[in-house]
């Protein structure tokens, strides 16, 4: 295998599936009545005698089709009523991931950090029309009730009270994830980029570059420059950890009154990799707020405060050059997600919310500008073009 092809097997399968799906007919949002029928059929086998009710769509997300429902089970061993969430892929999503992989990780993280309890998975769409997973509902909100309408939770303003309650939890959970003993865990399908010190960076780079190509990303000089810079400046990984992949405000649930985090969500991009990749993602400006010119990552930490606190709590040191590399990669990934992946899904009519994807695509001007700023930074200058 050449270095250009090197990536986790699951990601190669995801790319192949995305390419193959391009020729399929248009996709439309599932109706509540259709979901009710699907769930009833599924539980006829998975939990005979159980009944489905209260199916309703979950709003706010940009990627999956999600529905709450109630499962009433009258069996002698499993009696009771419980709330569940069905999480199902559209035909083409803004982030193409694997439900089976996410299910595996949610099970591995039970008792480590707060996560939803994943109960059933249909990773290959054997029953549901698209890959799907079912998990127990966790109470909590992703943003304060007075935060107003925000697409996909970007730039959520928490306010001083919640900020004070959430910041330590946010940091502690991230440190716990990075300290998780993945070598001892049961995580089939999760491969380890340990062939050489650059493999962790190479796997990320190759995956996102191929996603850009598969989705016919439109070349633009700053993106070409960034892609080449990332190829030429891959850092060594000093320690392989479990990374979350999309760690930020908006991707955890909390109780509004107490500020207690009840669940960390959206583990679909988790992998074994470099912790700097997670840190740089947290520090993306689009996921934070500006308060009188002061940036706060996820509205919780100023940049240097976040880095310093992470070092203190984790005992790891943050290599500024490596962090800079992943700062560039994060903006590049966001550009790919919004300008190529989201727009490919919308153009092909393979998603249930094209109008949201075209709305989100307008953010790519910010990511292009981020890349100009980052690549102009003196510390960015390596041996690349």
């Amino acid at each position: 295998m050449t270095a250009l092809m090197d990536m986790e097997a699951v990601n190669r399968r995801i790319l192949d599936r995305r390419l193959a799906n391009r020729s399929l007919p248009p996709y439309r949002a599932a109706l509540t009545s259709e979901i009710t029928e699907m769930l009833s059929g599924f539980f006829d086998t998975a939990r005979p005698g159980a009944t489905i009710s209260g199916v309703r769509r979950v709003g706010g997300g940009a990627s999956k089709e999600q529905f709450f429902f109630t499962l009433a089970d009258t069996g002698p061993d499993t009696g009771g009523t419980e709330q569940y969430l069905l999480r199902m892929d559209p035909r083409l999503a803004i982030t193409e991931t694997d439900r089976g992989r996410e299910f595996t990780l949610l099970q591995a993280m039970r008792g480590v950090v707060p996560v939803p309890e994943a109960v059933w998975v249909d990773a290959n769409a054997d029953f549901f029309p698209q890959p799907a997973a079912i998990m127990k509902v966790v109470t909590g909100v992703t943003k304060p009730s007075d935060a107003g309408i925000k697409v996909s939770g970007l730039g959520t303003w928490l306010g001083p009270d919640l900020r004070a309650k959430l910041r330590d939890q946010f940091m502690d959970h991230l440190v716990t994830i990075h300290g998780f003993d993945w070598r001892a865990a049961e995580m089939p399908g999760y491969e380890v980029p340990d062939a050489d010190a650059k493999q962790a960076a190479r796997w990320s780079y190759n995956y996102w570059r191929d996603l850009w190509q598969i989705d016919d990303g439109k070349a633009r000089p700053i993106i070409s420059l960034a892609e080449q810079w990332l190829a030429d400046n891959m850092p060594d990984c000093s320690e392989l950890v479990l990374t979350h992949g999309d760690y930020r405000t908006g991707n955890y649930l909390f109780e509004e009154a107490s500020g207690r985090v009840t669940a960390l969500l959206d583990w679909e991009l988790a992998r074994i990799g470099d912790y700097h990749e997670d840190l740089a993602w947290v520090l993306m400006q689009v996921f934070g707020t500006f308060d009188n010119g002061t940036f706060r990552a996820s509205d919780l930490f100023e940049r240097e405060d976040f880095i310093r606190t992470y070092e203190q709590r984790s005992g790891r040191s943050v290599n500024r050059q490596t962090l800079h590399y992943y700062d560039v990669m994060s903006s590049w990934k966001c550009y790919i997600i919004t300008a190529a992946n989201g727009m490919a899904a919308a153009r092909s009519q393979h998603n249930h919310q094209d109008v949201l994807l075209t709305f989100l695509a307008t953010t790519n001007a910010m990511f292009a500008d981020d890349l100009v700023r980052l690549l102009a930074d003196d510390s960015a200058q390596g041996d690349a073009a």
Partner: protein
Amino acid sequence: MTPNTDERIASVIRALTEVILPQLPPEASLAQEQLHLSVGHLQILRAQFDAIPGYEREELDDAVAIGIALQAGVFGGSATQQALTAIGTAVAAADGSNVRGQRQAIHDAIDTLVRAVSADGDAQGKSALRAIILKQEHARAQKDRKWFAPFGFDTL
């Protein structure tokens, strides 16, 4: 032109917000979300409609400017020279008859140049490529951010 474009878009917005939206049941969360986003798109399109041809023409002009700057400032081996020739061809063809296609042709040629310079450009060529792209794209990104600011994501 009667009705003009502004009047047509305005009437669609009014139908969506005052006739269709009130009829959507509260539980139709996706439909409500999509309708709000559709109205938002239309309002911004309405505000920008007259400026769109000028904006797209300026995108092409900026692509031509960066192409010319790269031709003048970047040198290297045979792959680099070949890519520079392709940029010259794309720039020469940019007469404004197809602003999107011509802009993309220049950007595609620049993409090839970036790879070529990495392969056989000298240090000076690499430095020039980087400086020219960063300068031109900084200016372009500011224009794009301002253009898309009404969508509400930007902290500009």
